[in-house]
């Protein structure tokens, strides 16, 4: 397509400008974390700090026990992501490859649950966990649901991905006497690694963002997650913006790291699913 050369150049320019705009809030939070409050309230506000005060982070850590919150958050996230990815893979495999009675209706029920807002079922689930099973101030209500399929979208994503693998591979293995689970472990899983990483990343982000459930199920300060700790920290400081921005920027780090590790699989993974049908 010859005629689009100038178009490509224009697109690059617009994207670069927009990218700068999208990054500006994050830069602003970061640069604020390295300044004193007096500098923050100066006019006009400087675009970059005159002195990069990384000491602000040490001072913030004295009142904001980031590492405890980080450990608590990971205690919830790691098993949930593992459980969700695992059970979504199992279900996706069954829907993509295996024949069994009731498949269509089960698949419909599963996809249908994508349309159900999770907030609606919060109260009955809370009653079941807290009054039924006596689990208050506990991580179990946050973790266990992820061992139950890992969400309809993720099951769907895995299923779509598995459908792109040629069936001949399965059949060859079957002739060699491999059962369904052998096939899953030795043929399917190695070829859908990128989809599994996408699912893990989506689960990770979902857990990060689920402030409401964390507020409902976690009560005591020693069990707080990063999100809860940050909320409390903000509430106690009100307008010490320099410290609040330190805590905010610290909270950004784990997600960014996980994303940078997984991101090259990401678009590829979603392209492969086709997301149609």
């Amino acid at each position, binding site marked *: 397509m010859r005629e689009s050369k100038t178009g*490509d150049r224009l697109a*690059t320019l*617009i*994207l*670069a400008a*927009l*990218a700068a705009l*999208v*990054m*500006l*809030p994050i830069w*602003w939070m970061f640069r604020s974390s390295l300044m004193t409050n007096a500098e923050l*309230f100066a*006019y006009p506000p400087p675009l970059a700090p005159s002195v990069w005060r990384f000491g602000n982070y040490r001072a913030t850590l004295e009142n904001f026990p980031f590492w405890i919150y980080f450990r608590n958050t990971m205690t919830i996230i790691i098993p949930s992501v593992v459980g969700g990815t695992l*059970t979504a893979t*199992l279900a996706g495999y069954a829907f993509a490859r*295996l024949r069994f*009675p009731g498949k269509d209706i089960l698949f419909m*029920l*599963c996809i249908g*649950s*994508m*349309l*159900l*807002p999770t*907030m*609606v*079922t*919060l*109260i*009955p689930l*809370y*009653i079941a966990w807290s009054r039924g099973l006596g689990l208050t101030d506990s991580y179990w209500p946050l973790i266990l649901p992820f*061992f*139950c*399929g890992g969400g309809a979208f993720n099951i769907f994503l895995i299923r779509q991905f598995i459908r792109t693998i040629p069936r001949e591979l399965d059949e060859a293995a079957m002739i060699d006497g491999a059962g369904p*689970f052998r096939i899953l472990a030795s043929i399917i899983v190695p070829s859908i690694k990128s989809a599994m990483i996408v699912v893990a990343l989506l689960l990770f*982000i979902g857990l*990060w*963002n689920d*402030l*409401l459930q964390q507020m409902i199920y976690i009560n005591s300060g020693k069990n707080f997650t990063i*999100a*809860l700790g940050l909320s409390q920290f*903000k509430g106690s400081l009100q307008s010490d*913006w320099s410290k*609040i921005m330190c805590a*905010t920027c610290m*909270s*950004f780090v784990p*997600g*960014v790291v996980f*994303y*940078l590790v997984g991101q090259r699989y990401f*678009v590829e993974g979603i*392209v492969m*699913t*086709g*997301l*149609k049908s």
Partner: protein
Amino acid sequence: MPNKRKRKEATAAYLCLIPSIIGLIFITYLPLLSVFALSFFNWGSGAPDPKFIGLDNYVRLFTTDPYFLDSLRVTVVFAVLTVIGSMIYSLFIAMLLNRKIPARGFLRAVFYLPYVLPSMAVYIGWSWLYEANFGLFNYFLSLLGAEKMKFIADGRLVVPSLALIGVWLSGNLIVIFLAGLQNVPRVYHEAALIDGANSFQRFRHVTIPCMTPIIFYNLLMALINNMQIVTPALALTNGGPGNESRFITYLMYQSAFINNHLGYGSSVSTVFFVIIAIFTVILFLTSRNWVFYEGDGK
């Protein structure tokens, strides 16, 4: 022999699906039925045991609840603003990213980045940008010679201000649009090019029709997600100023978990479910007129 293999396959399938079936029953559909049932009970503070009260919760919700109608309004306004804004923004970015441009992977990562940040930190960070005296946005306003604004502390501006954050966070839509654009068959574009179509005509008559299933999917999911908005109210505004950010999910949280009225909170949930279901059905019905699937013969 084939029968034995069939049985073996079905057994394997059920084994694989046990976790999901448990999830669908106990985490999805049974709680959905329970929330509906609970909404007919008075249960919680002042009523330690559930007591059947028929439709009283609903009557109270629609007639005397001081928050409900406001909360319905602000939720819908927020969702509509955010969905429209983020659909346009993310389709636009995805179309640009789909061209031959340098540093494509890097730019894609930039636009996706906001989505991977923990939302609690995002709202707190933005509350500093929106700060009424020294925030970044007020600095921009001062450059333009405009009056200072209070953004999230101003009843008229809180919903649009939060919607802007919602648009900023919509990187996941970009990725899905991008995936869709990459699946648009090249031959269609080439055929249109041979027929002498300019780039706008190709956008209008090739890209958009091929993309309608993805647009539909993103629209539906963005609507369902944004209707459930609650984090900014929990993190920043506590529903204020006034009721202007008392989103429905926040109202449900307040009734059930702050005021401990589990039955009443369930009636809020049920109404919320019905509203989202209505939106979903409307979207599905209209989709027949504008969503094209390959091989539809249209």
